[in-house]
């Protein structure tokens, strides 16, 4: 299999992460056990192209890099934050040319790839690229497009059946797979629409999870000849393993036993329990709310939905009325705010599950939460996903 896609630096502050992957590099590494002899074609920064060559070789991947001066990097504060892109060139480089039997093509920051293959899997990486597979002269006897629902919505105006079928028709694709984060994925093929679940993971490291999905789908559908629904199911299983372990190479024998998550109920509300009295606290509330909403969740946030004006009795009543309408509480625990802990206790008294984010807790402060079966996690993106998965009724 040939992978043609970006190789970039990736930096994350929390959790700390400093790697050379990018979609192309990660995908090639991900399939390297399943597809020995995988080739990667990409541009790479001349300052670290040698690091990239050795990195790919460690996975058994043969890399063909076109060196460029730009040091392209994606910077994350946390895995669900908006990535800051640095080092992108002002103009795109000329297209890379790839021909083969099975090709996985990603959209690039710095250039493009013209591919000609029997089976092509195209992950555009950007809404602007969604409709452009054939625009640069690329050709595929059979084409599958794998993209996320935001890209599909922006490109086609609809992230459901209508958008996917429109994309299939426009691009002459036989398969479209829409990745939906905590809700898994949807496969659209001729006469087929199938929901693929997300699979259970004890923690969620989100950077690169979409690349792993596309890679495994490409290998299973493109190379192994699996039905697209089965290929997407294998891809979703592989993602659950990746986000939990951060091991890039996928061994499908390790994902046979993972359990599917029931689909979250997007209409069920998540109560965001947190202090908001300092800029840092308020920023956390805004960030958690943004992430939940961007992943399709419904959120009740006391500061947004009730506010801080009015006497204590009024605010408490309105907050607790809101809480009782929610199916799960996401509590930001650091600082042990009295109001947040009260809300946690109130939720448990009413049988409402609680996901508690405690990055730096005093061990003794968690006793009551542990004793009332709260889910306690130490990283932000896992807390967001657990809260969404907690909306299952």
């Amino acid at each position, binding site marked *: 299999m040939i992978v043609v896609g970006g190789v970039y630096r990736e930096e994350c502050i929390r959790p700390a992460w400093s790697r050379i992957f990018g979609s192309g590099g990660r995908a090639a590494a991900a399939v390297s056990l399943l597809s020995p002899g995988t080739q990667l074609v990409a541009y790479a920064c001349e300052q670290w192209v040698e690091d990239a060559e*050795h990195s790919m070789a*460690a996975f058994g991947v043969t890399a063909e890099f076109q060196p460029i001066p730009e040091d392209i990097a994606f910077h994350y504060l946390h895995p669900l934050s908006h990535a800051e892109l640095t080092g992108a060139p002002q103009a795109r480089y000329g297209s890379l040319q790839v021909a083969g039997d099975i090709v996985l093509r990603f959209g690039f920051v710095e250039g493009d790839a013209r591919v000609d293959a029997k089976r092509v899997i195209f992950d555009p990486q950007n809404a602007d690229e969604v409709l452009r597979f054939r625009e640069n002269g690329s050709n595929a006897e059979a084409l599958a497009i794998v993209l996320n629902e935001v890209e599909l919505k922006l490109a086609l105006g609809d992230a459901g059946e209508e958008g996917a079928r429109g994309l299939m028709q426009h691009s002459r694709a036989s398969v479209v797979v829409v990745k939906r984060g905590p809700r898994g994925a949807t496969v659209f093929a001729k006469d087929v629409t199938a929901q693929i679940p997300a699979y259970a993971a*004890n923690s969620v490291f989100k950077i690169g999870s979409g690349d792993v999905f596309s890679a495994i789908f490409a290998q299973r559908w493109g190379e192994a000849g699996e039905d697209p629904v089965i290929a997407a199911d294998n891809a979703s299983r592989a993602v659950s*393993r990746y986000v939990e372990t951060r091991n890039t190479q996928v061994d499908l024998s390790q994902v046979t036993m993972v359990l599917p998550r029931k689909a979250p109920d997007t209409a069920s509300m998540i109560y965001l329990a947190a202090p908001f009295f300092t800029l840092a606290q308020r920023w956390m509330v805004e960030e958690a709310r943004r992430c939940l909403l961007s992943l399709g969740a419904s959120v009740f946030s006391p500061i947004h939905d009730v506010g801080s004006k009015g006497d204590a009795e009024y605010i408490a009543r309105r907050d607790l009325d809101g809480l009782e309408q929610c199916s799960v509480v996401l509590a930001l625990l650091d600082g042990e705010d009295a109001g947040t802990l009260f809300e946690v206790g109130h939720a448990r008294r009413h049988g409402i599950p609680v996901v508690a984010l405690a990055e730096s807790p005093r061990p003794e402060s968690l006793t009551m939460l542990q004793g009332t079966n709260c889910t306690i996690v130490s990283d932000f993106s896992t807390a967001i996903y657990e809260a969404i998965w907690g909306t299952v009724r």
Partner: protein
Amino acid sequence: MSSKQTPTRPSSKAASKEEATSAGTNINACDFLIAVDLEGIRLPRLARLKIGDLLKVELRTEGVYPTVICVDDEGQTVGALSAFLNLAQLIRCLRSGVKYQVGITQLRPGGCHVVGSRVV
């Protein structure tokens, strides 16, 4: 297993091209921090480890490109170091005889993070 403290080093900057060509002659070119998740984890070996355990960094030379691996106190491979700035320089330094070790700083089911540097 050993429960020694994880080694720490201040520098995390990528080596410049000039430094990168001088392994063996410029001692500072080999003095950098390694902080990365292990790849290609051997699960049975991982299961024996705990946070703070030290792993030796070794070069495995098969084929055109060598691989940098981490081995436990029984000499068994736990996983590989890959996909980070300074990997090529690390390989050059290992080839020139510089020794490195890493300590386990995070353990997850099926994965781990290591931090380390050269052994003085």
